[in-house]
């Protein structure tokens, strides 16, 4: 029983990390209708920026905040300068996917070029753990879970209760009609990208802080887990991203633990199969809206 709880806690901890990146993926999807394959590498870049700021003397929390601000600007700039010239999502989705793959390559290589591919030490935010009697939870994990809840709350408020949020939802529902009611679609898209980049920067920095090491390979595998989380939860649901992330985390850790055949290497394969199953059986995920296919 103790082992189960331990595994559960570990799974939740891992899942929380997946949820962090999944949230960024969902944000981009909600505001622009795109799957951004470069999300992980963009988050990676921001994490390195955080590290650099720490190297230059900033305390961890401040470094993360500054990095988030920079990420917002960077994300918006990328939408304006790189994504928008390619075309709109309805007609050019394939081209845009390829562009995000190009960004994936570029960001990953840039990180290696600017900072080198050796591992960097990333400071840990909390070293202590909380003893729950039957099991222990690290404060790190708890912080991440709290951050997730806070992010969800903020996003919910913004999307459901503000004019800005309504405009963003309108744009993702029908960008042409959005123009016809006067929404400056370009600005909304930039905002969506900026927001997603910010969330990614926060997630990446927290992840690195948990692992205490930082190297260019950090995000590649995480991206797949995050995609699995977003797929399971529903790509247009931030709540789904979080719940999906936690479930993927717990399920993969449990699978690794209880089915010895799977082992560490096949955890990812497990997530992959999960993606496949969800997309065939219930493509909108747990919380997503069913796609109304317009004929």
């Amino acid at each position, binding site marked *: 029983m103790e082992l189960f709880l331990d595994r559960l806690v570990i799974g939740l901890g891992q899942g929380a990390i997946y949820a962090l990146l999944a949230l960024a993926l969902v944000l981009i999807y909600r505001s622009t209708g795109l799957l951004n394959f470069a999300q992980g590498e963009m988050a990676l870049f921001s994490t390195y920026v955080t590290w650099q700021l720490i190297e230059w003397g900033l305390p961890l929390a401040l470094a993360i905040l500054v990095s988030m601000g920079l990420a917002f600007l960077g994300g918006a700039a990328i939408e304006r300068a790189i994504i928008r010239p390619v075309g709109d999502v309805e007609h050019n989705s394939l081209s845009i996917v390829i562009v995000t793959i190009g960004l994936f390559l570029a960001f990953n290589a840039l990180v290696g070029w600017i900072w080198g591919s050796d591992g960097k030490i990333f400071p840990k935010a909390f070293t202590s753990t909380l003893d729950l009697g039957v099991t222990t939870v690290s404060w790190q994990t708890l912080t991440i879970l709290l951050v997730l809840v806070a992010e969800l709350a903020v996003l919910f408020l913004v999307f459901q209760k503000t004019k800005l949020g*309504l405009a963003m*939802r309108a744009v993702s529902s029908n960008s*042409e*009609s*959005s123009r*016809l009611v*006067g929404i400056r679609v370009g600005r909304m898209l930039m905002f969506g990208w900026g927001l997603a980049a910010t969330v990614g920067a926060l997630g990446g920095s927290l992840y690195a802080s948990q692992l205490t090491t930082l190297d260019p390979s950090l995000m590649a595998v995480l991206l797949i887990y995050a995609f699995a989380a977003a797929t399971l939860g529903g790509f247009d649901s931030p709540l789904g991203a979080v719940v999906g992330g936690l479930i993927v985390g717990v399920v993969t850790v449990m699978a690794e633990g209880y089915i010895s055949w799977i082992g560490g290497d096949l955890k990812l394969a497990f997530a992959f199969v999960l993606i496949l199953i969800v997309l065939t059986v219930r493509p909108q995920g747990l919380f997503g809206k069913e796609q109304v296919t317009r004929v």
Partner: protein
Amino acid sequence: MTRLLEATGLTGGYGQIQVLFGIDLTVDEGEVVVVLGANGAGKTTTLRALCGMIQAKGAVTFDGQSILGRKPEEIVRLGVAHVPQGRGTFADLTVEENLRVGAYVRTDAEIGADMDRWYTTFPRLAERREQIAGNMSGGEQQMLAIARALMSRPRLLLLDEPSLGLAPLITRGLFEQLTEVSREMAMTLLIVEQNANLALDIADRGYVLEAGTIVTSGTAAELKSDEAVRKAYLGY
């Protein structure tokens, strides 16, 4: 009577394919003007060109200002509202949210009052205010699209084939409501329609479009009595 909208020598199309070959039309304040034509004549393209949704050449002025080349979201802020072909509802938003977003450009305090007013005019919408717009019938979505456009309190309302896909009875009712509303609000209407009968019944003036050019124009009465127009578009 002020000239609200004037287009001169409007040409445009989609990429390589030119659809409009020099359209001249005017709409004065308070009028109801219709543009008739068969499928493929360029009616929708004309509206889209006027609104900035496609690239066009020539001259277009709204209330004296040149609007050619501006983006739709800017043109709309000048007091134009466009109900696109196929309704263009925000299918993932609720009815209420559709209406609310219709008032996006407004910052005054009467938005709620306006919403109530349209709920009264279109009771079906009131019944469904929390429903997802995409699940409603074609007629209801058309009502919603019109109400949404009205939420911005436009001076000029453009409608693109409002009867498309709707049963004639529903369309007639809709047109009648539309005329009432436009008189109440002193609004100008420019309607593009295939259903010439319905359109000419509520119009003051009309243009007939064929293959991207205007072939006939005149008052509604003139058009109704024009033999060529009658044979081609009115069926008798």
